[in-house]
């Protein structure tokens, strides 16, 4: 067996699932960046996005791109709505309170969709694009779309946050909402926008996920949501390039332990998640603020 090819193939696999983690993690980070909320419902927004696209395609026979746009727009609205109802009242409360509300929202969306669509999975229409063969390597086209999209969106968002006025306002509002208001920044508006962007990103992530693993079900967002959260932390929570890097890394680590390591150590995939978490723990011990995180010391 050619291990080099195997390793390359596994890295490619990792980049694929990683790019989806990255997209979801970007959404996470948008929201986290402004309200410092670990939005446990983000994975479920992703599920909602996938379901909306599914409905658009199967029930209304719309073409995929239009379905994606509708799904993103509706998720943006849903995200803003959730923020208004469930998070805004807790803005001045201790952070862990909002965390619990987020969990509540997550349960709510999961159950609501179970009731609406049933607990069992639905086959999601895939694009049957033939994989591109480069030598012994196979590259699926959906994968290239996912990777390209996540890199593009990361750069666009980073520019938005760092350079635009609105982006700066978001950062200011996240640090000290009251002081930001004294600058004339409408904190409510900024937060709404962050949720809209984050949720729309979640929707894209959900659709790409559904296209790659063509089943959707109400609990589909739980694991990717958790992984995306881990990715965001790994890269340095609140940092957009970090989220993307974390997502890719996570995907690669996963696929290498499961697919490459297991060629030498048959039980590797039994321990895959443990290995993943161990790496995460090691990284955080060496870099307590994540890979790209700056450990800014509190001025005393």
């Amino acid at each position, binding site marked *: 067996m050619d291990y080099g090819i195997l390793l390359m193939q596994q890295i490619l696999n990792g980049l694929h699932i990683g790019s989806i983690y990255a997209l979801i993690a970007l959404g996470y980070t948008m929201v986290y960046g402004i309200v410092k909320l670990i939005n446990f419902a983000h994975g479920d927004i992703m599920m909602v996005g996938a379901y909306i696209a599914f409905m658009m395609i199967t029930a209304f026979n719309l073409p995929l791109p239009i379905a994606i746009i509708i799904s993103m727009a509706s998720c943006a609205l849903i995200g803003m709505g959730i923020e208004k109802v469930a998070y805004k009242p807790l803005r001045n409360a201790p952070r862990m309170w909002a965390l619990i509300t987020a969990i509540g929202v997550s349960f709510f969306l999961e159950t609501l969709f179970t009731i609406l669509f049933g*607990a069992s999975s639905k086959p999601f229409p895939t694009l049957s694009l033939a994989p591109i063969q480069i030598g012994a390597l196979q590259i699926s086209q959906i994968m290239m779309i996912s990777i390209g999209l996540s890199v593009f969106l990361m750069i666009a968002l980073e520019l938005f946050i760092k350079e635009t006025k609105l982006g700066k306002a978001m950062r200011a509002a996240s640090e000290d909402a009251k002081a930001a208001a004294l600058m004339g920044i409408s904190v409510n508006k900024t937060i709404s926008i962050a949720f809209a962007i984050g949720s729309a990103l979640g929707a894209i992530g959900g659709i790409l996920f559904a296209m790659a693993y*063509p*089943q959707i079900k109400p609990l589909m967002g739980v694991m990717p949501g958790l992984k995306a959260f881990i990715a965001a932390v790994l890269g340095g929570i609140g940092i957009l390039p970090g989220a993307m890097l974390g997502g890719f890394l996570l995907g690669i680590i996963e696929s290498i332990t499961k697919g490459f390591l297991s*060629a030498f150590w048959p039980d590797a995939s039994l321990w895959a998640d443990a290995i993943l978490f161990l790496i995460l723990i090691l990284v955080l011990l060496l870099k307590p603020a994540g890979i790209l995180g700056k450990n800014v010391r509190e001025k005393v």
Partner: protein
Amino acid sequence: GCQKADASSDTIKIGGSFDLTGEAAQYGIATSNGVKLAIDEYNANGGVLGKQIEFILEDNKASQVDATNAFKKLVDNNKVIGFIGSDISSTTETIANLAAEKNIPMITPTGTKLGITTIGPNIFRACYVDPAQGELLAKFATEDLKAQTAAIMINSEQDYSTGIAEAFEAAFTAEGGTVVEKVNYGKNDVDFKPILANIKNANADVVVIPDYYETIATLITQAREIGITSTCIGGDGWDGVTEKTVNNPEVVEGSYFVNHYTVEDDAVIVQDFISNYKATYDAEPNAFAALGYDAAKILIEAIKTCESTEADAITAAMQNTSLDCVTGHITFDENRNPVKSVSVIEIKEGQNTLYKKLDAVK
């Protein structure tokens, strides 16, 4: 609320508990639908012992604590005289302990873990145990598919999957075959490409995938995508997979699995079940639903036979079951596992078709 015991109650109360909201809810719901269908049919025909059957269903969201509370509630508050459930093995085993202690006749439609029924003389099941499926698959692979090499994919967090895999490996080796590759994955995995690379390299005659249909659908799609062409086989968990692959039916084409029944079976009971289920739930009945239906039937028929609602009498009657069911003609062995025939299903043109029937194994 806390009700007083009412011996002269005018209904016969049967309890059930399944995962209706947890991580395996799709299976629990299908099973409980089968149960409900059977009970509704009995009630429509006048019930049993001249009384209507009241089926009380409690959710346990796949949690052992919830299963315990649900069962105790059914017994203590609702005074059920028999119990059907649960779906997955962990909650079923939890309940079986309690049912043995309280001596409530119990039958699980789908709890396949080996030790469950030996917990007490009143614990039965409608499905076959995991090892039996593994052995059947091994036999089928060597005899019918003439397979010499096999690769196994195991969901290591699921005792159903590990149980079948272990038995398959033992039997397959005993028959002279070699297991050339074994890979594990977790219950939450969706990206199987990494492990499939190894399966592809192994290039075995058959690939054994003992898991449930939703995972199978995702897994096998990716397997075909990366160019695995081996024949795939599996257990009863596969029933339902064709629905999940309607968009790309070619991925499961030519696969085989052993099942409790086949839709092609023209026995009246099977055809009635299928049409009634479709009419009631607007969905195809899968093996879970069929087993739920049979479990209910076995319990109710036992009550009918012994003409009593007394636990020991029902248990004895269940032990002596000899009944035509959707999943075949069922009798019980001394460990209260069903002895029934097995259908080998071949997926052809996106449909489950009967390949052959195997005799009952023990």
